Structure formats: C-alpha cells, structure tokens
C-alpha cells in the first residue's frame, strides 16, 4: 500500500495535497460510522502535503514514507494537537512537545490525518472504554474494532489512512489488527522509543505500526525504531527489516507452544491449521513444544500492568493540565479525589485500585514481587525457545471480534481475550498479527508470529512469506479505494 501510494506521488498521478484531501474527505464521510478518529488534523496534514509537493516540484527524490497519510493513536504526544487518551481526564490537553516516533515520522515527511480512538488510557480490549465510544469494525459495524488501538485498526482497515501507529501493552496493536483483518506489529521492548507515549505500563508498553501489508509494517518499523537518549530503556533496533524481507524461508524452524492452543476451537483452530499447512508448503518445519509458565502469563500481566498503571496515572490531579473538577472542595486532597473520580472511567479506576492493592504493604510480596519473579520465569522460558526455533506461531486471539457492548460485564472475562498476546509483552519479544482467514460471519482471524528479541528482520521475513502465499486480504466498504485494491 505504501509503495503504491509512493509510486503514485512520484509518477505525479496525483499531488500529495490531492491524495491527502481524498483521505480527509473520506474521514469526514465515514468517521461517523466507524468512530476511528478522535481528532482530525486537516491543517497539519495539508501543510505537510504541501511540503511533499514542493519537494517533488524541486525534483528531490522522495523517501518511502514522504507524503503518506497516516494516523497516531491518541496516547502519542503531538505538540499543539489535542492528545486525550480517549479520556475525560485529558480532554483539551495539548502537549508542549512531540513524541520521539512522531518526530521521526515528521522527519520522513509523513502526513498526519488525525489522532485515533482507543480504550481509555489504553486499558481495554474493545476501544469501548473510550469516553468517545467504541470504534467499529469495518468488516461488520455491529462488531468492535478491538482494543486498545481500535481506532487505528479501524482507520487502516476502513481505508481512512495508509497506516497508523498504535501502542501495545498486552496485545493492543495485535488484537485490533486481528479483529480488523490487517497487520499489526509490536516491536521488541526497547526497539522503539517510548518518549512521548502516555504511559500505561512502563515495562510492557511499545509503539508499533498497524498497516495493510507486512512490507508496510517493515517500512514504518525501520522509520520509527532506533536508540533515543530520552528513553533509558530504548536501545533501538538491531538492523533494518526491509532489506531481507523477501528472502526464501525454506528451512525456517517454527515452534508451536501447545499451551497456546488449549481451548482454541472452531474457525480459529481451522485457520491456524491451514496457516501451518501454508508454512509447511513454503518449506518451513513446524514442531510442537511446551511453555508451561504460559498459564501464569495473564494474572502476572494484570498484576504488573495495573501496578505500574496505578503509579503512572497518579499524576493526573488537575493542577498542571487536564480535567479539573468544577465541584466545590475544602482541601487540595478533596479537589484531587473529585477530579480523578470524575475524570477517569470505570475500567481505569478498577485497574488503579488493583494496582494499588498489589503494591500495598502486606500484599506486595504475595502479588507484585511474586509476579515479578514469575515474569522472570516466563521471560527465561520463552527466550530459551529461540535456541530451537526461529519464530513461534500462535493465534493472536482465541476468537474473532465480539459484538458491540458485549464486554465490561465481568472484567475478568474480558481479560481472558488477551491470553495469547500478553506473554509476548511479558517476555519483551516482538510479535506480529496477520490476517489468516475469516469465520462464518466473515470476521477476520489473526495469525500471530513471535520472534526472538530484536529479531524483527527474521520475524517480518517469515510474516511476508506467509502473507504472499496466503493472501487473506478482503477490502471493507469504506474510505479511499484505488484501482487494483489497496493491497497492490
């Protein structure tokens, strides 16, 4: 998709301003149905588009991402542009600095169409905890786009942007990509700078691309990854992923952890088996093995993520930025409590309370400390698997998208949808979701590939090979569509 658009610009089939306006008009038209965007940024977009056109007019060679219309999840800081995390708490908040990834994309000449919807503060799996309501799945408006990067997935799958950046803490890029039938990459922890990403869980968050194709994901990853001295946990990517993307994968060793497949049934199971057949046909070797500590991944994730979140979200008190209560109060303490209770939604408050609980004295050892130790075990086991395998294969989600307003009744039930994605964040590994089929309701099914730390090149290579062989692309009836389909 990106290289197609790039060609169109270079060959002057249309100007960048024209291309951008196509997307902006489509967004105006279709966002009501999809609710992908929180904020549209036409002025920013057109200014960037004009700059691209000027470069073209001067005969300069255009970088791959130059002039490409894209989106940023609304937890990525954009200077002067409202950044809300889909929360009342940050409505009206305009950062005074740019996130590192946004700086990188601006340097590439990318055209920002707008900020996309998400679960509030990235806590959720449907985008429905958003104060702006959930984003819809372009393949079925009665189903969710997923979460927490639901808006980003909906925008890309709905052809309202060429690509988007999302964030993934427990599956928030991969799950919506899976639900919406597109590609979503969560890089290795530390490959992409978190500077400017409004934190949910610091030791788990990563920013990554949502795209139509694996090649697009590779291009965007190469542009946004890299060492950033403002993020002490970011060591950058080991190598670019585009150069080796199309290598032959004959002899690729794929590991399938049986714990990942417990309880996987129906259409999803069928799709997984077909995917494995495709890989065998491409010359890969598939072997089953065991990752016993996987069964603890979900509770470990929720304990650690909520603990960190309860701390990261402590700063929202209405004093320096963000929502402030308009009720009366007798003390600063009261003002802060009212502000926070009115500014945060239910799910956010629940997770803050859980996080506070597991860190409080008396519970710290049994929960937080134990979860950290278990995390160590999971990290060890998963990373050790790469001594025998090049990549691991699993479903992204045990199910396809669920209907609107389905979740939220029982919080724990909702957490279970993360069961396949969460271990990857715990171990800090790179993971990608690609479309691998459709269920009987024509809802997309996602295939997840997991790589060794900083081995995105090998991971994307494996993903590309499957993508080309399987071709699971199905256009949704929205947005900007070109001749030959957007996957051309």
């Amino acid at each position, binding site marked *: 998709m990106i290289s197609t658009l790039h060609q169109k610009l270079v060959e002057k089939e249309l100007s960048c301003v024209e291309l951008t306006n196509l997307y902006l008009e489509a967004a105006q038209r279709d966002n009501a149905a999809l609710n992908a965007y929180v904020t549209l940024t036409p002025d920013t977009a057109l200014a960037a588009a004009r700059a691209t056109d000027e470069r073209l007019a001067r005969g300069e060679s255009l970088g791959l991402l130059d002039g490409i219309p894209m989106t940023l999840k609304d937890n990525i800081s954009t200077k002067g542009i409202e950044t809300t995390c889909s929360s009342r708490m940050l409505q009206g908040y305009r950062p005074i600095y740019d996130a590192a990834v946004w700086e990188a994309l601006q340097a590439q000449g990318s055209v920002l169409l707008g900020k996309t919807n998400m679960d509030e503060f990235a806590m959720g799996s449907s985008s429905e905890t958003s104060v702006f309501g959930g984003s819809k799945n372009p393949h079925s408006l009665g189903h969710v786009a997923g979460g927490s990067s639901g808006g980003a997935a909906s925008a890309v799958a709905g052809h309202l942007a060429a690509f988007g950046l999302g964030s993934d803490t427990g599956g928030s890029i991969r799950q919506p990509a899976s639900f919406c039938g597109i590609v979503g990459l969560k890089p290795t922890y530390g490959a992409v700078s978190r500077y400017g990403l409004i934190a949910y869980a610091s*030791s788990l968050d990563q920013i990554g691309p949502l795209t139509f194709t694996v090649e697009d994901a590779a291009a965007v990853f190469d542009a946004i990854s890299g060492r950033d001295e403002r993020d*002490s946990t970011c060591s950058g990517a080991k190598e670019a992923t585009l150069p080796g993307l199309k290598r032959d994968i004959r002899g690729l060793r794929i590991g399938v952890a049986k714990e990942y497949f417990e309880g996987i049934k129906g259409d999803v199971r069928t799709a997984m088996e077909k995917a494995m057949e495709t890989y065998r046909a491409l010359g890969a070797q598939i072997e089953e093995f065991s990752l016993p500590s996987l069964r603890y991944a979900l509770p470990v994730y929720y304990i650690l993520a909520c603990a960190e979140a*309860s701390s990261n979200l*402590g*700063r929202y008190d209405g004093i*320096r*930025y963000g929502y402030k209560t308009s009720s009366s109060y007798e003390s600063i303490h009261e003002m802060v409590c009212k502000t926070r209770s009115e500014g945060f939604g239910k799910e956010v408050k629940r997770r803050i309370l859980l996080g*506070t609980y597991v860190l409080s004295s008396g519970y710290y050892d049994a929960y937080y400390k134990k979860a950290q130790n278990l995390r160590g075990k999971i990290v060890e086991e998963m990373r050790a698997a790469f001594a025998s395998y090049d990549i691991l294969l699993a479903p992204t989600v045990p199910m396809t998208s669920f209907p609107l307003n389905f979740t939220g009744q029982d919080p724990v039930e909702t957490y279970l949808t993360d069961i396949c994605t969460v271990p990857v964040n715990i171990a800090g590994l790179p993971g990608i979701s690609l479309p691998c089929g459709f269920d009987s309701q024509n809802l997309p099914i996602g295939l997840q590939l997991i790589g060794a730390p900083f081995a995105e090149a090998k991971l994307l290579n494996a993903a590309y090979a499957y993508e080309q062989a399987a071709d699971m692309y199905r256009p949704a009836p929205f947005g900007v569509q070109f001749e030959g389909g957007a996957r051309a």
Partner: protein
Amino acid sequence: MKEYELVCGLETHVELSTKTKIFCGCTTAFGGEPNTHCCPVCIGLPGTLPCLNRSVVDYAIRAGLATNCEIAEISKMDRKNYSYPDLPKAYQISQYYMPLCQNGYIPLSNGRKVRILRIHIEEDAGKLIHERGNTYIDYNRGGVPLIEIITEPDIRSIDEAREYVEKLQLIMRHIGVSDCKMQEGSLRCDVNISVRPKGSEKLGTRTEIKNMNSFTFMERAMEYEMERQIDVIEGGGSVVQETLRYNPDEDITESMRSKEDAHDYRYFREPDLVTIHVTPEEVEALRATLPESPIDRQARYVNELGLPEKDASLLVKYKKVADYFEAVIEGGFNAKPAANVILGQVFRRLTTEEAKEAFDILPTPAQLRELLEWLEAGKIRMNLVKSAFEKMLDTGRPAGDFISEDDMGGLDEAALRKLCEDSIAANPKAADDVRAGKEKAVKALVGGVMRAAKGRADAQAAEKLLLELLK
C-alpha cells in the same frame, strides 16, 4: 527523679551541586522566576521519561567514600508513591531497596562514632507557597538532585547532633558535592528522637521532627521534644509515634500529619530506569579524586603542626583557606605565623562566609611565604610583616616592593642603644615619668624607638634597654 538519655538519629537531605537536575538537563541554579527552569520531564508531563545524570552518581559515591561507606556494586532506582502538589508525577524517584552507599560513619570529637546506615540518590520536589487560602506551586526546584543520608540512632546529646551536622557540612563542602547551607535549603535535617531511662538498652518510641532550617531551631526543637517525651512518660503515658513540625514562633513541636496522609509508599522498582553498576575500579578512581578528609586534616594541624584546636578547625572549615595555608607552609615551614596572618589579617577583610569560602585574595601563597621566610630568618620583625602584608593584600605586589634591604637586618646593640637615647631625648616628659617610677610611661619611648627603627627593632629588647638607661 529518673535520669533519661536521648537517643537520636538524623535523616539529612543534601542538595548536590551538579549543573543540571537529576533526570533532565534543566539548570539547578538557585532563584529565577517561577517555572523557568523546567521542561516536560521535570514537570512530569504525560509521556515523559527520566534520564539519570551521571554526575549525580559520581557525587553520591564520593559522598559515600568521604563518610567511610561501602559502595554498592549494583544499585537500583525505585518509585516512592504519594500524592502531593509539589510532586508532579505523584511519585518520587528514589532508592529504597538497593541504595548506592551503606554502612559508613562520621567520627565525633568525643571518640564516639555516628554510624551511617545508607546514602541514596533521589529527586527533590517543587516548592509550595500557601497564601490567602491558595496554594502556589513553583517547580524550579523539582528534580534537583539530592542525597539522603540516614544514620543509626547513635546520637546521645544535642551537642553530638550539632557536631554531626557540622561535620557532615564540612565534609560535603570539602569534597565539593554541595554547599550545604541550611538557610538556603541545600541541607535539610529531619530528626528522629526518643528517650529512655539511662542505662536501658531498649529503644523508646520515636517521633520525627521536620522543618528545622537552622542549627538553633534544631537544637531548640530537640530540647523541647526531649522534655515533652519525658513529661509524657513520667505522667504515666506513652509516646505516640508521629511526625512533628517545629514551630519556631512558639518554640514547640506540633503534630504534622493529617488523616489524609496515608503512609503506604508502595515502593517498587522504577521501570523507566536501568540498573547502576559501579565496578571496584571506578570506585577507586573516584576515591582518588577525594581530597584529604577535613577531619583528618584538622587532626593533622593539631598533632603535627602544633596549632590550637580552634585555629585548626577554622582553617579547615573552608577548603580554599586550608589549601592556601598548606601551600604557604609546604615543606615543613613554621605553621603558626602563617595561621595567624590568615586567621587574623586576612579574615578581618573577608567578613562574610561566602568571602571566606571563595578566599579570593591577591597575594599568592608564595608571596606570603617569602614574607614569612624573612621573619623566620630574623631579617624582619612581626610588625613589619603585618604592615607589609596589608599593602600586599591591597595591591597584590610582592613583599619586596614594600620592604627594602635597609629595612632588613635587625639592629645591633649599639644601634639600638643610640635609638633609645634618641627617643629619651625626644620625649623628656615620658623619660621623667619613668625615672619617677611610672614604668608604664616607657611605652611611649618604646614607640619612639620602633618608629625610628622602622620595624627592625625588637620591642621587648628596646623596652629593657630603655628602662636600664633611665635607672
């Protein structure tokens, strides 16, 4: 009446004098309009991340070495979570589980030691001003690097507490990690204090006193609190563990915490920062940069150079003064005259603490030494030294500019006798007074001799000779 003993430990926060804050590049310079030394990181904007200032680690290690601590090879940063308007992230990045330094001590002059449990690095909070019912917040100070130095409850008297803090100040200034000014807030002490019957081994319940920003306040607070605790116990009650504030207006301690302040800081490893790994080689390299401990230096001045304790402690109090002094007497030169000139003449001119610390005087150590060498060799007298040095302080010119060959050399017996006779002749009334038995009047005659001799005469010898002549 039972006798009670004081048991006290101190928690001291020292502001490090690095150029920039602990987690961002904002300046640590004092003052400035509110919120003008800030950036997204130190006001804790969403999405920002801390980056640890290397110098903070080095300064903290040096502080640890200078107080005889063990330096941890592995140490980590933790979050201390609590909500207060001066803390923009609602957590302070500090070190709880694995601090940088442990198990040190500071020796007291009575032979006892105050053991240091730990020293760790952390960030300072902003400043709150409560006025007219409103709260004003300035984050310039937010993120300024601190070390927190925590002692064991080894202190047994208010004097010991004072000495500990003074020695801590001395050491920190000497190694250049902080200017440690209590009034400016670069040194803050919290006192943990309890009492117990003398001879008892058990620790009593302690209270914590905060907010004492001068030595006087600290001593008064401790005095008041010690008596208050004794009164409570003698009255049959028990001391409640609580945090107190010293109220200087009423000279009392009063409870500080309200019900809204919960004490659970929920410490956990700071996920945005990585481990600090200091090798033994790096520690030794830092140790090599440390100057001689001011405590050892002072002892050396007393024991080896024969200076009185008071002079030694004054010289050592300001590192530049001590360095200058040692440059003057290098190679085993006589210390006392040099000390006298510095502590007398020079200090008279450098009236403020800042001036003494800066010790910015014109004469070089070599120039003062030259002058003192002439004194030592008997070529000139002390009063000539003084007058010449005053001129040297004014002009920065060497001693030779103010003392000629003629001035040098003492007077022989005959010359002295002639000057005495001249003086007697010039002052007949004083001479008569002396002959009449008023020996004090001889001073005027001595003065005459000294003036004529231009400093080459020895006043005592002159006086002796005059008295003889007038018998």
